[in-house]
């Protein structure tokens, strides 16, 4: 993959923050998937780097799950290329997927078995190369106990999964994904069904894993979840990737300052040329330096209630980039 680094960097208008492509963990080129007449994924170029927490956003039916399934070789792409951990998919699935942990569209397990037995069986069903990416047969039950502890199921690991709540099943699914200490985690709605405390626990766990070097590809429609965790964002709209940026760049100050004052008229008089917009007591000023603005206002005798640089919220950004769904449009 490092050999065609030159073309990778030029690829896609959104990859402005790409400097080094040797550490690309997920790469798709013009990935396209058609189900009959419906184009679920329409030519997307994903780029996920090692160490990223990549937030894959999109409305229901925008093609998130289909893309995830393509990455994992479950759904076969109509056209386009996919590389995961530097090897083509689905061609190299047998070697690549041993280094990937995944949660796709909800967890699944055998209800009559215990959580621990499910993990052991899941691990035993594939080949077990001893190596840096996870142990073999010998430490299997120990690894199962470890990951159960990690996701907070240590106490109920021996209970039959049939009796698990949705949140516990979700945790078990995550445990299964972690069984082999993967380099890459592909998680589709990982906090589905969890209570707020559970969501926080899982978020902390994922951030800890990321700090230890695990790349995380997180697909979700929960903005708050993405905003709190992710370093980079990919936004899907009707099967197309309309945005791929680092979160820091997206929510960087816009160069304007927001001001709330009980004396708006005086402030307007003082800031005449710089005023961009006024909405009652709320003013928007063209300056990227809130500190000197504040000094000027105070010197001019204008009382200031709130003052700060304007930032786009992720919600604004997404609203701008996606076309609203027409009222009569059927969500796909």
């Amino acid at each position, binding site marked *: 993959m490092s050999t065609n680094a030159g073309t990778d960097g030029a690829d896609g208008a959104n990859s402005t923050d790409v400097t080094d492509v040797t550490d690309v963990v997920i790469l798709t080129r013009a990935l396209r998937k058609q189900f009959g007449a419906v184009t679920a994924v329409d030519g997307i170029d994903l780029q996920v780097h090692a160490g990223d927490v990549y937030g894959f956003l999109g409305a229901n039916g925008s093609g998130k799950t289909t893309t995830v399934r393509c990455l994992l070789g479950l759904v076969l792409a109509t056209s386009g290329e996919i590389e995961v951990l530097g090897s083509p998919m689905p061609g190299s699935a047998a070697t690549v997927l041993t280094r990937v942990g995944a949660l*796709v569209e909800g967890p699944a397990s055998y209800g*009559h078995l215990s959580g621990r037995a499910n993990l052991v069986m899941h691990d*035993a069903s594939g080949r077990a190369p001893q190596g840096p990416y996870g142990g073999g047969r010998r430490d299997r039950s120990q690894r199962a106990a470890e990951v159960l502890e990690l996701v907070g199921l240590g106490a109920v690991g021996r209970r039959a999964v049939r009796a698990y709540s949705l949140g516990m099943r979700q945790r078990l699914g995550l445990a299964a994904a972690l069984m082999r200490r993967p380099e890459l985690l592909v998680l589709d709605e990982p906090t589905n069904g969890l209570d707020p405390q559970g969501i926080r626990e899982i978020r902390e766990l994922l951030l800890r894993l990321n700090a230890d070097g695990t790349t995380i590809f997180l697909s979700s429609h929960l903005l708050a979840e993405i905003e709190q965790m992710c370093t980079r964002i990919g936004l899907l709209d009707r099967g197309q990737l309309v945005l791929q940026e680092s979160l820091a760049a997206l929510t960087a100050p816009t160069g304007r300052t927001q001001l709330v004052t009980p004396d708006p008229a005086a402030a307007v008089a003082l800031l005449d040329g710089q005023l961009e917009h006024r909405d009652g007591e709320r003013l928007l000023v063209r300056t990227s330096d809130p500190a000197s603005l504040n000094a000027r206002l105070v010197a001019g005798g204008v009382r200031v209630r709130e003052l700060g640089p304007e930032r786009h919220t992720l919600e604004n950004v997404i609203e701008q980039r996606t076309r609203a769904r027409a009222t009569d449009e059927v969500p796909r």
Partner: protein
Amino acid sequence: MRVELVKLFGRRRTWVALFLLNLLPTVVAGLLAWTRLAPRPGTGPAFLSAVVADGSLFAIAALAIVLPLFLPISVAVVAGEAVAGEAQAGTLRYLLIRPVGRTRLLVRKLVAVIAFVLAAVVSVAAIGFLVGRVLLGKGSLDGGIISVSGSVLTPTDLAWRTVVAVLFVTVSMLGVAALGLFLSTLTDSPQTASLGAMAFLVGSSLLLTVDAARPLQPYLPTRYWLSFIDLYRDPVLWSNLERGVGLQLVYVVVFLAAGWANFTTRDVTS
């Protein structure tokens, strides 16, 4: 591989199926022992007329009782469940990303289904033998019984013939197993796959009774099922047994190839 066997035999429903398979012959043996009303030779399930004379023969009679309907139904259910059941439970996607190769998974499922067939046939024969001995008693002809052709078969003769019969019945079920497995890769509903396989068998059995379908009959999967009775002729009449095995192998190859072609190129969206 062991995983699939553990999965299959770790399930209560597998054991219920085996229990039910053995229940019917046992009930029949009980009724025979109670009434001593064996069907006249040439009517009713094969060998049933002979077992009143010698309970040991009930092993074969039990196979003949379950073979036309009970056994193929249970095989169709287990085979239809193989892939579609995992798809319905959602575990198929996790197996594939573990990763387990699709071809490998299909082979494992086939082996597991064959293991089930073998377990079913052997248990029916073994329990049939025991039940026959206990309820119907040991035959009066010490050291041998009369073959279908009228000559005497020694216990050794009987033993190897019964082993071959068990194998032949197992092989006879492979066509259904492969068909069930193929259908199981087509749909995400195990019931649909099982019913499809059963419908095929019912169709085949029906065509065997229609004279107009005579040109088709040598190719029907159920055509040679009861030919294992030929093993108890003296000398053994091999021709139909050979044809039966050959035919089943053709069905296995065709349906497995179809199942493989479908499963390895299919989108797993369950």
